[in-house]
């Protein structure tokens, strides 16, 4: 099945990820293998569908890069408006996480510990752990 590796058009979402999602959605249901295979292929089609539509929407706007808004509009125009609320929630979490990550990096820089002291502490830790491994 995977004989032509390196061929872009054989890309799919990993089967294990799909299996996990199916299991979480339908916990006590047995699912035939060929049904799972079909879901994997449907995901590929879905991704192409949404990206293609989002791309068209992007082209019509004055932007060169597909943005979340383009994707959301694509979902709406393709009849998947029911996904939008959840997608927006998750987008918000994504932005919050990114913001926290940036804040955490800048907080670390402003700890007030001079670099030499940090280096010294680092050396101590290295020494400590190399002793315990040898």
């Amino acid at each position, binding site marked *: 099945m995977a004989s032509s590796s390196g061929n872009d058009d054989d890309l799919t979402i990993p089967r294990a990820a799909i299996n996990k999602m199916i299991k979480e959605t339908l916990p006590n*249901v047995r699912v035939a293998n060929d049904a799972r295979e079909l879901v994997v292929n449907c995901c590929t089609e879905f*991704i192409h569908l949404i990206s293609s539509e*989002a791309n068209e929407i992007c082209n019509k706007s004055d932007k060169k890069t597909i943005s979340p808004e383009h994707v959301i509009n694509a979902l709406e125009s393709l009849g*998947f408006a029911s996904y939008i609320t959840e997608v927006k929630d998750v987008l918000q979490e994504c932005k919050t996480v990114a913001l926290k990550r940036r804040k955490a990096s800048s907080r670390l820089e402003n700890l007030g510990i001079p670099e030499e002291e940090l280096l010294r502490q680092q050396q101590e830790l290295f020494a400590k752990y190399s002793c315990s491994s040898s």
Partner: protein
Amino acid sequence: MAAAVEAPVPAEQDSALCGSEGETRGAEVEEKSQPQTGSTGPAVPHSRLSKLPLARIKALMKTDPDVSLASQESVFIIAKATELFVEMIAKDALVYAQQGKRKTLQRKDLDNAIEAIDEFAFLEGTLD
């Protein structure tokens, strides 16, 4: 027919939504306890919020020659939409299995769901 289709779904949908909310909240807690100091790697925090590999999704998008650049966040929400799609099609197919009094979801249940639901018309090419 329509009434029968609607009945089992809402209750399941609620629990599925709660489940996914819990998942993302859990992912956020994980993020706090393991601060990624100085990490500017693009996909790292995102991989905890999505069940699907973002790199693969991006690669899939790029197999379409017309598709230009996409922001990381767009790839991320396409991932999320795909998760919701899987949930939706699985639940819709389940109804057909139940109508057939089967406990195993079979391919023909998906086929039926695809043919019956307008939004899934784009999938008719994947059927035999």
